[in-house]
């Protein structure tokens, strides 16, 4: 299919030639769920990203330091144990403070304690400054598609 390439796509292609996009992934707070984290690492790597995995039990500062050090494009925060709301408070502000204004923030998992309607939860995290919010049970393919879209990568 032929289409006129936009400036953005052109830029991206050029960028792709020279560098991979870098993702910082980790499980925030006192959360030790390691399995999904390991699968995400594998899936994102297979999808062609440069994955910096800071693992479980990661503090906000660890995410931010890793993103600064590796000049990351996206931070993906996982939280499986229900404390996500408390653990993510002020995360966006700290990112801005560290000069990571342009870094995309994704968050996903079982973000709150107990069964709740998804829409209010999503709204809350969007208001907290996250660009993408994923419900429990999201498959890696979904976030990979979003990453490609948000980063302007050709599929």
């Amino acid at each position, binding site marked *: 299919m032929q289409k006129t390439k936009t400036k953005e796509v052109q830029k991206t292609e050029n960028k792709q030639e020279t560098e991979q996009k870098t993702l910082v992934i980790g499980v925030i707070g*006192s*959360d*030790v769920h390691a399995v999904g984290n390991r699968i995400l690492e594998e899936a994102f790597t297979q999808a062609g990203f440069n994955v910096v995995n800071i693992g479980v039990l990661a503090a906000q500062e660890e995410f931010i330091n890793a993103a600064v050090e590796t000049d990351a494009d996206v931070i993906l925060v996982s939280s499986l144990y229900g404390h996500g709301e408390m653990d993510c408070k002020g995360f966006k502000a700290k990112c801005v403070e560290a000069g990571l204004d342009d870094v995309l923030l994704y968050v996903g998992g079982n973000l709150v304690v107990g069964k709740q309607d998804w829409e209010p939860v999503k709204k809350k995290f969007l208001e907290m400054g996250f660009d993408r919010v994923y419900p*429990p049970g999201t498959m890696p393919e979904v976030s990979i598609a979003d990453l490609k879209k948000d980063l302007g990568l050709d599929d």
Partner: protein
Amino acid sequence: MKIENKKWSLEKFNQIREEVLKQWPTGQDVDLEEAIEYQKNIEPKKRVTAKLKEAKESGITLIQPRAGVALIDKHIELLRFLQDEGKADILPTTIDSYTRQNNYEDAEAGIKESREEKRSMLNGFPAVNHGVQGCREVVEALASPLQVRHGTPDARLLAEITLAGGFTDFEGGGISYNIPYAKEVSIERTIYDWQYVDRLVGLYEENGISINREPFGPLTGTLVPPSVSHTVALVEGLLAAEQGVKNLTLGYGQCGNLVQDVAALESLRELAAEYFADFKDIMLTTVFHQWMGGFPQDEAQAFAVISWGASTAALGNATKVITKTTHEALGIPTKEANAEGLKASKQVINMLRDQSLASNDKLEKEKEMIKKETKQIMDHVLELGKGDLAQGVVKAFKAGVIDIPFAPSRFNAGKILPARDNEGAVRYLDHGNLPFTEEIVKFHQKKLEDRGKDEGREASFQMVIDDIYAVGQGELVGRPKKNKKEENSCK
């Protein structure tokens, strides 16, 4: 830190105890003598040990949920519901994740926020913050016995407070509450800290108070081969017994293949009888965990997974089963969903009360292999420790001789890779440094090759990923998508 598998002197215990009780202000309220008196007045039907003994003798399977919220009154309300509506035989108190990391400040903030938001902002009961009196409020409000369930590498203060608070059962161990629950805590550290917990339980026992201990069987809950979890259960049980623990419930998490799961339960009992033969007055029981991996989001499908777990527990004659809920895929369940998991489990268990899986060649073969594997690991661990189990364990983890799949800890080798065979039994795709004989290695290889042939692909990490997602997507074995489509189209 030099650890050894030797009963602690009271002096050593008391010296450390002083520090432990200072970790948080509520520690100062613990008075062991007073606590023993308090425990003496708890009637037998509110003791887990008595309940387990009766279940073991009459051959029935008890049911127990997981549950815990931030505030005392809400926690009592929750447990009362599970007791009265769910007919739980043993009640849990699941501890929140901040407490598990000894982060009592954040737990305190969580309590405060929970009061303000009028919903639990913590995923469990912060027992240390609530202190001895808070725990006693809970225990006294309920008719059934209570167990502490958590995932705390350093659970010394938690044990002090909850046991003084009237709990009669304490889950965990130096391996099972470290490797799957921590990233940076050394195995020496947790074995040492759990010797403290076990010595504390031993002190209660020496004063006539029976407290049950339960190593956490399922570990990471993800494709853990039976011989890995059996090794950990035996090691933690033996370390506990050395410190004076007299009541042990050894655990195993459902893999999903009926023959393998029943073989695992039976071999666990038989191995325990063998390894604990020197401890004459010890009571050994088993706990079976319903499926610990990813659940289907659909509640009807989740009920099916729960019921199948209960069926296996009953057919394998576990003393206790830990039940799951239909909200499993969505996070922490409502009390109603939790009670439903109990009711479904109880129905199956009662219906199958008089049935077992009869012995057959396949079952015997599975048992034989699990026992051989476990013994080969255990022998090597003891060898590494030059006869000392505690030292052996530390060296075994360093060498990958004990290795837990998908664990976050950097003190775990993380070299083994499990996958399901063609009937859904969990096998070693890569056995890493587990000290297995050629016979064992080939047995597992062959099983996985058979599956690979059937699916027209090599056994690989992709197969493992497929298996991890499978139950959540309505299957046990994660077959490749191409294969699945063909199957669908020819239905």
